[in-house]
């Protein structure tokens, strides 16, 4: 299965959350690929802690591949090449976790017919090899979004299942923006239909992930005053109504990632050790990531609503 990770704005935690979902799937035994189509600001190498492995990928990353300058884009085996001490000891029974980085220093570029064919070649190849392939897309209606919409509508891809995750923060502006990215005049659904997708089928394959959501019930906020708590409750309810009005209400939410202090400081994978041994991460965060990772392939959370 292909999973496209999109967001309207930067700073939504799209990359860090989808990298964590990839990690969680690999822990359950799936073979997982993570494709960094975040042209312009590739961050995956930092999240997976493979900066050393990135040296020398200037010419053989995804940009070079799509532009026909290299036949095979570089692959980084995360378990083997990470500098994260905990990830190095590849957990027993875990699947492969492979990063396909963008070119260091490569920006957005115009796509053509041949780049599209090469994109289809790549996605098909990954789909025969990996159980789940995450594709991290640049924020907004980018070339990357257009390209994968066209690729998934390509006749050669008609048997390849795909799903979309749209990440947004839990604020008024982010809710409106995320809805616009999907449902707006020039949104993913509209653009997809122009590329040849069936509207209902595409709509059924899109779910939302609310990231960095403060939970009013959480202990983090228990020190606050009653007035603050009441205000937060009211805002939360108002946001839920707003989301529902914008067709991104609870029924199309795949999961909610709570506000996690360590992710505010550092884009990283959250391991069990971070929760259990060093206790720098919250258990709720890890639980939420595990649950979203599980729901990705649980059909009861997908389909037309």
């Amino acid at each position: 299965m292909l999973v496209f990770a999109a967001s309207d704005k930067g700073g939504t935690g799209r990359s860090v959350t989808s990298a964590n979902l990839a990690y969680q799937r690999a822990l359950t035994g799936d073979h997982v690929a993570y494709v960094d189509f975040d042209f312009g600001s590739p961050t995956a190498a930092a999240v997976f802690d493979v900066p050393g492995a990135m040296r020398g990928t200037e010419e053989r990353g995804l940009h070079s591949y799509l532009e026909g300058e290299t036949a095979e884009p570089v692959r980084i085996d995360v378990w083997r090449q990470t500098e994260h001490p905990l990830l190095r000891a590849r957990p027993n029974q875990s699947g492969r976790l492979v990063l396909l980085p963008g070119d260091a220093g490569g920006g957005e570029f115009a796509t053509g017919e041949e780049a599209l064919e090469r994109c289809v070649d790549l996605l098909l190849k990954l789909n025969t090899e990996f159980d789940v392939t995450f594709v991290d897309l640049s924020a907004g209606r980018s070339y990357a979004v257009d390209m994968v919409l066209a690729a998934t509508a390509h006749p050669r891809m008609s048997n390849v299942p795909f799903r979309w995750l749209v990440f947004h923060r839990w604020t008024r502006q982010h809710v409106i923006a995320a809805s616009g990215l999907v449902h707006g005049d020039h949104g993913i659904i509209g653009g997809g239909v122009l590329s040849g997708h069936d509207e209902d089928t595409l709509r059924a394959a899109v779910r939302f992930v609310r990231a960095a959501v403060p939970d009013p019930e959480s202990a983090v906020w228990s020190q606050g005053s009653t007035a603050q708590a009441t205000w937060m409750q009211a805002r939360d309810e108002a946001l839920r109504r707003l989301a529902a009005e914008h067709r991104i209400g609870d029924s199309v939410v795949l999961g909610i990632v709570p506000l996690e202090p360590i992710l505010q400081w550092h884009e990283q994978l959250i391991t069990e050790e971070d929760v259990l041994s060093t206790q720098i991460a919250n258990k709720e965060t890890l639980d939420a990531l595990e649950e979203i990772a599980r729901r990705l392939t649980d059909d009861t959370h997908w389909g037309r609503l």
Partner: protein
Amino acid sequence: MAPRQSTPPAVLACGEIRTCLLPARQALDIRSAAQLLGLRPGERVLLSERPGLYARSPDTLTGVDCPLPSANGARVRAVGTVTAHAALTEGRVLQTSAHCRLPGTGPDQRRPWGEYLVRPGVVEPLGKLPHEAVAQGVLGGPRHGDLDVGLIADGLLTRVLRHPLLDQRPPFRSRPTRLRWAALPAAPGEGPSLERFTLAEDELRTVRLRVPEGTSDAGIAALCDDLALHDWLLTTVVRMLDGLRLGAGAAQDADAVVRTLRPAVDHLLHLWMPGARVGRRLAALWDPLEERPGFTRQWQALVQRIRDQLTLHAIPAAHREVEPAP
């Protein structure tokens, strides 16, 4: 310039093979296989049904003019053509294979292109060929811009995989492998020998051979295609068994085991026939591999393990079926 009559004998042959599962739900029958591999209109696809279904495309030629890879840094430019073909075994395993042979010396200057075209599959150095260093360079992996027969095999694979006949629904997940080979001349009077077979990276294998003068490079390529096919089979089945969580004891265990192993039974177990398509002299090169590490021995152990697992998990299923309905 007067055209040359002949080229000196080859002192190096090298090639690379990509092997992968055909991305189609059903194995292709012989007619579809011929369609898939009909790379050149008017040229026939080689088809054979004994001892198994096998189809091979006509050869394609790719012109090259670039430096040769070398282990000692020597930059030798070479010009000529590389031969490539695609093959399908039992309508299920797809291989593309590119190779060329190189004479010990070539003209000091580049000749008219027509002279190279009449020698298909020959890449001639400008000047003298440091064949040992180039063989090592080939096996070690060419640098960007050097002659890379692997790229030609990969290009052909990409082309075949775009064929509309393929529904892109592979019956199970698997990884492609690459096998790089280089064949150097054997000492006078010696027969062919396999100097080294290595598992270099996860999916890369390298093979270093010695062959008597006059051994056809098509014959060597056929041997290496065969090694690559069987190595892929072993690798793929080993990974399939690796993916099993045995002894977990859960009720869904049986389903998971059958779901994981069934593709091996459906698609792979009947493909094991080492040496079936290799000339008699070169087929002898299988012997050292059969001795150590023992390809067929490992294969038989895997097959036995798969059958035992399936038998074991058939037992509770049989019990479930005789349980009276409530």
